[in-house]
């Protein structure tokens, strides 16, 4: 097989070709490595997807299930001896002494570490404009954002600079960039994938997941990610194997459309593509009905209390003592802490630390954090009620298509609205996938499909049936 042909393959097809002996894992790795290195060397003149690219080809893993197919990994996963700084200046030069459990798991299954990907600093952002490594550009239109926070992973996969990638999702950070870049992204049930070695943002929400060219790749990668890890007390044994999705029809599948997430605030072109996808689902035999998520409009408010509160606590560890940056010539210990954190954190991270510290401070805890935790209970109840009536819930993934670089940076509340449709599922801990469902003004629109906890197979099957029938063509974004 020619290298050009090999680059067109999905990761699953490449693994099959390697197993069949028609493709060399080394050649595939080299081809992706030189493409990724070219983008890295171009800096912000390129897409700026990568923070690190492998400089040698790892030992071939032809026999392993993933066959040595290269994998791009978001910067915030610790990788032993490989720079891991979560997009932040405060971890400049940090080389972790260990590797994140999920990355080890994938390596043991035969994935080869190709590159680390750019991201919003500490995964805080929806546009990948908050990175110490500079902004990432959207391969569909380089004047636009790729979404965030896993923007480098999404842009790399969309542009064909990596066959697939790992991201993390706290309030939408896999699904929203997948939507804006026209690829597949999935956030699994909270606890499915070990968080050990992920540089933490908001621990009760953070989950790793796949960003891929198609649904079968997402299932394949996720299948090798899930499982209990003694190093993460919140990780769980996934109750069954992740299957290779194969459904061609949606006969009898009940899809619920929540009014609260499919009306006001969603761009007209996004709604058009969403409704066209619903019509397609109906043709495949799905039963579409309205469903209520009465507290979903409050999810964003609850999220922007809970996530910053947890972040303010998690980020307390960055104090200039054990790793990363330290401010020069500190007067005393407190001066070292406060100036190191001033110099090392970017504007958005400072904002969230301040917000979280405020929400947790004496006199405000009950009004903010306490109330937000109660809203979270109501949102989880809404989903339980809805899933008694329908099998899956469908919404647009993001309220808009990819927006212009710089368009929303001066208005944090407007930026936060990007997560409007994805945050409710995060707060409820349930699985949700985004698949490309069409174009609006030449830019991709994402469709989100969510199901009850541990219904990943059902979600993937429905996503696969719709993907096959919609026939979205993402090849125009390849570089």
């Amino acid at each position: 097989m020619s290298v050009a042909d090999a680059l067109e393959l999905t990761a699953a097809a490449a693994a099959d070709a390697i197993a069949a002996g028609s493709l060399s894992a080394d050649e595939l790795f080299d081809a992706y490595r030189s493409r990724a290195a070219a983008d890295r060397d171009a800096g912000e003149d390129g897409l700026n997807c990568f923070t690190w690219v492998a400089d040698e080809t790892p030992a071939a893993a032809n026999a392993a299930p993933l066959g040595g197919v290269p994998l791009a990994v978001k910067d915030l996963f610790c990788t032993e001896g490989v720079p891991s700084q979560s997009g932040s200046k405060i971890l400049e030069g940090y080389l972790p002494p260990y590797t994140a459990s999920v990355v080890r798991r994938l390596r043991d299954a035969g994935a080869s570490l190709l590159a680390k990907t750019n991201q919003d600093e500490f995964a805080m952002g929806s546009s990948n404009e908050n990175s110490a490594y500079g902004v990432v550009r959207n391969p569909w239109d380089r004047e636009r954002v790729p979404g965030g926070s896993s923007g480098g992973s999404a842009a790399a996969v969309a542009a064909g600079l990596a066959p697939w990638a790992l991201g993390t999702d706290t309030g939408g950070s896999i699904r929203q960039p997948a939507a804006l870049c026209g690829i597949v992204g999935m956030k699994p049930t909270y606890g499915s994938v070990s968080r050990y070695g992920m540089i933490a943002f908001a621990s009760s929400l953070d989950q790793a997941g796949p960003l891929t060219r198609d649904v079968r790749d997402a299932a394949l990668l996720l299948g090798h990610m899930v499982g209990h890890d003694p190093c993460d007390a919140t990780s769980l044994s996934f109750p069954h194997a992740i299957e290779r999705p194969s459904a061609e029809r949606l006969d009898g599948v009940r899809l619920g459309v929540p009014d609260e997430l499919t009306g006001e605030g969603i761009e007209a072109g996004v709604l058009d593509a969403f409704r066209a996808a619903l019509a397609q689902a109906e043709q495949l035999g799905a039963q579409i009905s309205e469903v209520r998520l009465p507290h979903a409009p409050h999810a964003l408010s609850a999220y922007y209390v809970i996530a910053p509160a947890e972040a303010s606590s998690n980020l307390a560890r960055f104090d200039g003592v054990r790793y990363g940056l330290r401010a020069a010539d500190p007067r005393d210990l407190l001066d070292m802490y406060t100036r190191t954190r001033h110099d090392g954190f970017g504007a958005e991270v400072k904002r969230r630390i301040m917000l979280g510290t405020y929400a947790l401070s004496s006199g405000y805890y009950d009004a903010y954090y306490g109330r937000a935790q109660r809203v979270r209970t109501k949102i989880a109840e809404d989903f339980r009620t809805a899933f008694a009536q329908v099998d899956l819930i469908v919404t647009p993934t993001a309220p808009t298509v990819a927006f212009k670089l710089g368009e929303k940076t001066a208005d944090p509340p407007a930026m936060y609205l990007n997560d409007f449709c994805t945050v409710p599922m995060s707060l409820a801990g349930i699985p949700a996938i985004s698949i490309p469902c069409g174009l609006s003004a030449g830019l991709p629109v994402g469709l989100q499909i969510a199901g009850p906890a541990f219904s990943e197979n059902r979600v993937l099957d429905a996503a696969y049936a719709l993907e096959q029938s919609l026939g979205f063509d993402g090849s125009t974004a390849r570089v």
Partner: protein
Amino acid sequence: MRATVIGRDEVLHVARLARLALAEDEIEPMALELSAVLDHVARIGELDLDGVAPTSHVVDVTGGLRPDEPRPCLPREVALAQAPAVADDGFLVPSPQA
């Protein structure tokens, strides 16, 4: 709900709690941005949440305990390798009070 107003003093108080130095020109924008975001999140104050239990973790995890057996940890030199300053096999920091 009335607009939340976070003033300069409150910003400086929270920054002290967060161990975060702010430059003079960061204080005013921070006050405005925090006020704007808090106005948005204050909408949860409109909900009737009496008697609703808080959720901290959505997935019920029980029995997370393992036997307490000593195991090797990171070697000292590996743990210290990334530190900005090291002395006498430990992390070197300035005195608490100059």
